[in-house]
């Protein structure tokens, strides 16, 4: 097909481009310290992440990571199986790099007068590198290191407004919970290592048969691993950092964390549980079906997130809780796995994370725009914004209705696939019926508070005495681009669904 063959390691190109961009930003910073050349810095970041996005999409279309039997170029295993590039890895690299690009463009205006421009963008690229590496990591060692690479810059990004007490407090809470959960995660890894003697995911799966005596140890280890994933995806046992961190963080950083970081957390959960702990042998060893844990977590997470979101007055906090709720929806992808398949739920969860990447980033960027204007934080403060900024408010309407899952928009289709997948999985495990019911009920609740924001913006009378609002180019461009992506996701939803299903099938088999 191609005139020349790229070497195997080139399959990592998206992650390599991201890290190269981070290093380029270091170089810019060291040549000209304290540079305020925002166009150069934000431009470099955006170009780097768009290049990573382009390469990832190109690889996916070209069939890298599809098994040769299915007409592709085969799953690329690198460094002795420590990294693997398959369709799922490329899919999530796409999600991460598109969110990074949006956030970088939006930060051009939002972080306009900040003292640490170059550091901000390089930290963001390093975190994006970590997330892209998480997508490809295939050993508990690389997973842990990539998780730290994604987390450590995020702590600093959340608290980068060093004089803002909210930002520092959010960063502190994020860091403390992150440090605790990574300690629990590494203890879980040590127990899994004790039970199987390996850390590479396929090797763990191969050693499961001989691990019969270590069932308790392995079960405890898996439980602790779930704790680590829950932190990264902001789901229930370790979700309570999310509202504070998202509310305190600069809004573009909150968008970055709630979309890209969550997606990256899910990809390691998907990979670990499909590759290292296949359902049947693991159940034989530990005696419990691990999907049970995810069923409980999914229901609790989505219910808690949506009910808490419905009681909020602060828009950013409402979005933070709704992001917890969406983590619950995506958890269905793991809860619905069964011994004889489940690629439809997992594919649906991947679709949801992609669409969620667009619409949630867009929603947080609208909050960034409102913070840039300085209109305030509560629903009332947003009243009547549509008079002054109709375009942005129209985009907000798209994001809100897509998040709520109103039929023609992308969010509806991914939720629809999740629902049908859950119903289908109910033939193997009737508890999935409860999950499907919870999904429907929670979507209905979420419509209430999403519609409340749209109503505030479009229907309520505007607050008197508000000046005309500025139109920052970068923020507007990012919001409109996110809205276009949310809408465009509709006609191309077929290919997206195909890609996600195919990726899920490859990952599960």
């Amino acid at each position, binding site marked *: 097909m191609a005139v020349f063959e790229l070497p195997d390691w080139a399959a990592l190109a998206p992650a390599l481009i991201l890290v190269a961009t981070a290093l380029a930003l270091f170089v810019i910073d060291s040549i000209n310290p304290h540079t305020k050349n925002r166009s150069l810095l934000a431009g470099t970041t955006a170009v780097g992440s768009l290049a990573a996005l382009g390469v990832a999409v190109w690889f996916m279309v070209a069939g890298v990571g599809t098994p040769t039997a299915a007409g592709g170029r085969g799953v690329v295993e690198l*460094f002795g199986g420590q*990294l693997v590039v398959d369709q799922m890895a490329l899919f999530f690299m796409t999600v991460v790099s598109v969110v990074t690009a949006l956030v970088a463009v939006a930060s051009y205006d939002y972080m306009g007068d900040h003292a640490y421009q170059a550091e901000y963008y390089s*930290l963001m690229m390093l975190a994006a590198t970590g997330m892209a590496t998480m997508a490809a990591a295939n050993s508990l060692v690389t997973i842990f290191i990539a998780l730290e690479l994604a987390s450590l810059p995020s702590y600093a990004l959340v608290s980068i407004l*060093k004089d803002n007490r909210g930002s520092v407090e959010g960063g502190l809470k994020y860091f403390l919970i992150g440090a605790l959960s990574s300690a629990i995660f590494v203890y879980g890894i040590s127990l899994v290592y004790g039970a199987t*003697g390996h850390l*590479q995911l396929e090797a763990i799966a191969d050693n499961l048969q001989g691990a019969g005596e270590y069932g308790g140890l392995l079960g405890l280890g898996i439980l602790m691993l779930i704790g680590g994933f829950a932190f990264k995806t902001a789901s229930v046992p370790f979700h309570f950092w999310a509202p504070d961190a998202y509310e305190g963080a600069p809004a573009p950083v909150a968008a970055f964390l709630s979309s890209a970081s969550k997606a990256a957390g899910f990809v390691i959960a998907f990979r670990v549980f499909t590759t290292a702990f296949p359902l049947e042998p693991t159940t034989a060893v530990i005696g419990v079906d691990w999907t049970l844990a995810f069923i409980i977590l999914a229901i609790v997470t989505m219910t808690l997130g949506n009910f808490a979101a419905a009681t909020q007055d602060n828009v950013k906090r409402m979005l933070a809780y709704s992001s917890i709720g969406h983590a619950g929806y995506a958890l269905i992808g793991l809860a619905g796995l069964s011994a004889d398949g489940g690629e439809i739920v997992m594919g649906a969860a991947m679709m949801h994370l992609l669409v969620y990447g667009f619409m949630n980033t867009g929603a947080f960027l609208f909050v960034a725009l409102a913070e840039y204007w300085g209109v305030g934080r509560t629903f009332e403060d947003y009243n009547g914004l549509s008079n002054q900024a109709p375009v942005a408010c129209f985009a907000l309407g798209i994001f809100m209705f897509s998040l709520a899952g109103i039929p023609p928009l992308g969010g509806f289709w991914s939720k629809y696939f999740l629902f049908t997948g859950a119903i289908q999985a109910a033939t193997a495990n009737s508890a999935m019926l409860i999950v499907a019911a919870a999904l429907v009920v929670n979507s209905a609740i979420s419509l209430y508070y999403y519609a409340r924001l749209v109503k505030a913006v479009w229907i309520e009378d505007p607050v008197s005495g508000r000046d005309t609002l500025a139109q920052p180019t970068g923020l507007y461009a990012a919001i409109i681009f996110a809205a276009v992506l949310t809408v465009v996701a509709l006609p191309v939803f077929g290919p997206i669904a195909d890609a996600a299903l195919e990726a899920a099938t490859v990952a599960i088999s």
Partner: protein
Amino acid sequence: MTNGPQLRLGESLLPGILAVALFGVMAMIALNTGFADEMVGFPEGISVTSEIGYALFDFTALQSTEGSIGNTEPFLVSFLLVAVVLDAALDAALVLAKRETEGKPIAALSSVSTGDSASTQPAATDGGAEDGSSRSSGGEQR
């Protein structure tokens, strides 16, 4: 700083019970695990440290295959990733530790006085004696 060590035991009863219960559960699991009596151990005559080095850099050709020490996984990519992580940590720690004056970052550790105070008070090895003549023209006239 000079007070002796003090234990603080108040209001830690419930977490204490929780921790002991957690330890109990984990210990039950560990004791019910059928560990083999003998550890496999490392074969005699092989330097563990050099094997760690080979594993770190994927020198699989050099790794010894006798015994089972050769089952070690390759770690080159982890090593490279850790290098990036330490970069990120350095960057982040610097951003956080730096101080700003009027929005401009200055060195992470700096004295309160700014650069121009050094010109008004030149260093003079006179034991800190202050008389106007030595200050105006440095310490040379003494």
